[in-house]
């Protein structure tokens, strides 16, 4: 519609998150970033590199190794007028802060009968693929999506990496953002003035009529690759990027499945009790009569992620396993 094409810039997922943090801190004097090694080190995944020099140690706040206390402090600061962005270095360490997230952040608004909301954003890296082995490769965003009171986001694209953080900062509720470790180096172009994006809606990243591949975050590229493969076999897969894991955009899911009549849910969590189980159950409840085949799940194997590359990759969803599951729904 716009006659003048908006300026576009080359960037990475990592830079997009950094740009969003910079925008947020520039726009709102109450916003600040807090977490382990976000300052002097520049962030475990280099997301916040340079921001300490720009904003100073009050607003790019290095914390001790105290996940429970600094997440709790983020909640308290949010209660008392600030706009904290707390970085938990990775989801693996967030277990140490889970009590604060579940029993305080998610619960305070309710327990106080609506008096005290917690406008807090928590960012964490998630996922496997870097051969970090059993204690450093969890994908636990599905757990967080279980908790009423939270919003859970999983940006899979550069636009979303930039825009979802800004969107989250407009939300008066605690919002968790999961950034998949394999995405940080992803390159691409976005509008120079890219800003907040809508959260809460899933996106159809590729339209198709034969089967719906439903995924998010680090698995999106794998699903897209699977769709590519399937296209060569004349199977047109529709790919849904959930984007928001809580609340789920069931309308988009059901709308697509009602058209394609087949679905594969892809999720890097362990299969048993995965987010994919929830999506599958939702389809069961809302689109059972539309289905021409059982919904399939492609998740991680039931094993703590092993260190060697061949075993790690074998444990994770792959384009081949996704494509195979899609074919199976078509009886091929």
């Amino acid at each position, binding site marked *: 519609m716009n006659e003048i094409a908006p300026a576009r810039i080359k960037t990475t997922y990592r830079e997009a998150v950094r740009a969003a943090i910079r925008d947020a801190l520039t726009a709102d004097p*109450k916003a*600040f970033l807090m977490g382990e090694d976000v300052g002097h080190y520049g962030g475990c995944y280099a997301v916040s590199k340079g921001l300490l020099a720009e904003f100073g140690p*009050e607003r790019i706040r290095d*914390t*001790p190794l*105290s996940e*429970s*206390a*600094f*997440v*709790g*402090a*983020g*909640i*308290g*600061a*949010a*209660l*008392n*007028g*600030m706009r*904290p962005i707390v970085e938990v270095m990775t989801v693996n360490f967030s277990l140490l802060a889970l*009590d*604060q997230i579940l*029993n*305080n952040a998610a619960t*305070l*608004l*309710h*327990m*106080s*009968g*609506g*008096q*005290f*909301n917690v406008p807090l954003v928590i960012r964490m890296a998630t996922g496997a693929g870097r051969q970090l082995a059993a204690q450093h490769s969890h994908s636990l965003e599905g757990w967080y999506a279980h908790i*009423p*009171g939270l*919003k859970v986001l999983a940006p899979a694209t550069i636009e979303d990496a930039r825009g979802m953080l800004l969107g989250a900062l*407009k*939300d*008066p*509720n605690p919002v968790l953002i999961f950034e998949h470790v394999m995405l940080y180096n992803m390159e691409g172009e976005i509008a120079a003035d890219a800003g907040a994006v809508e959260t809460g809606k899933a996106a159809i990243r590729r339209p198709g009529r034969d089967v719906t591949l439903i995924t998010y975050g680090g698995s999106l590229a794998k699903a897209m690759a699977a769709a590519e493969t399937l296209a060569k076999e004349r199977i047109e897969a529709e790919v849904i990027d959930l984007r928001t894991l809580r609340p789920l955009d069931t309308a988009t899911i059901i709308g697509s499945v009602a058209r394609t009549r087949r679905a594969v849910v892809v999720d890097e969590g362990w299969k048993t009790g995965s987010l994919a189980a929830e999506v599958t159950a939702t389809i069961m409840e809302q689109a059972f009569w539309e289905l021409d085949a059982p919904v399939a799940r492609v998740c991680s194997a039931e094993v703590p992620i092993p260190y060697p590359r061949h075993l790690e990759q074998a444990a994770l969803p792959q384009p081949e396993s996704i494509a195979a599951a899609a074919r199976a729904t078509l009886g091929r």
Partner: protein
Amino acid sequence: MTDPAIKPHLTREHVAELLRQMVRIRRFEEKCVELYQREKIRGFLHVYIGEEAIAVGIMQALAPADTVIATYREHGHAIARGVPMTTLMAEMYGKQEGCSRGRGGSMHVFDAKTRFYGGNAIVGGGLPLAVGTALADAMQKRPSVTACFFGEGAAAEGEFHESMNLAALWKLPVLFVCENNLYAMGTALALSESETDIHHKAESYRMPAEVVDGMDVVAVEAAARKAVVAIRAGAGPHFVECRTYRFRGHSMFDSELYRDKAEVERWKPHGPIERFGAWLRQNDILHEAAFQAIETEVAAEVEAAVAFAEAGTWEPVADLTKHVTLEPES
């Protein structure tokens, strides 16, 4: 130090007020126990009987813009902070007129007007929050203080450690108030801490710390005033260990196997109201009539609170999933 903020003024009005506040708590709690037995109050109920001097003493030092964070044994703190007994009692009942709309109950008292941030049923769970509210005040250059109450049992939790360090490291305006009543449920202090002088723990974070007789409301007030002045002046956090005793069971379920009845009896005369009352009488500061007037007034207030709660209404079941998330402004 000559700062008038520091020394409690022991005017007759002031001592009467201290007594009155403690009596308000005591009678409220006694009523709660009765109402629990009558099944008007349910869930876990932890009363503050015997520990009233701490909440009352500390609150004297706080201003309206300060923040209070407490535990599941927080009725006393709420009352001393100014949460109306009416809405507090309605909360005990679970009525929607309650200060947390009835959603929270005894362990989750919240009140925005008095900046009472709960009520927290996870032992130690309030300490990181207090670090955060104080951080927000510090970053916004407000002279406010957060008073954070917790039991000596909480001192064993990792969150205690992390919170002490953060508060001290960042020199945040927190007044940590440890209510050392010698037991965590049925676990005696000596069975839970290798260092039983809790204030020494605070010192290990280079945080100024002291121990005070938690049965002496004037001593608590004096310590709080001094600490709050220092905190407001930017000295960073301060730790007060108040030595006290819980006269009742941990909760209404406690069969008190872990302590002798005799031990409780020995403590009773040292109770904060008992002692303060005796002192006021001995020194002829308050007349018997004044005591009577307080009791009469408080009894009426408690009755009014019960009436308010009784008259309260149940939130409609249709509203069940309200208050879970707020809608963003668009």
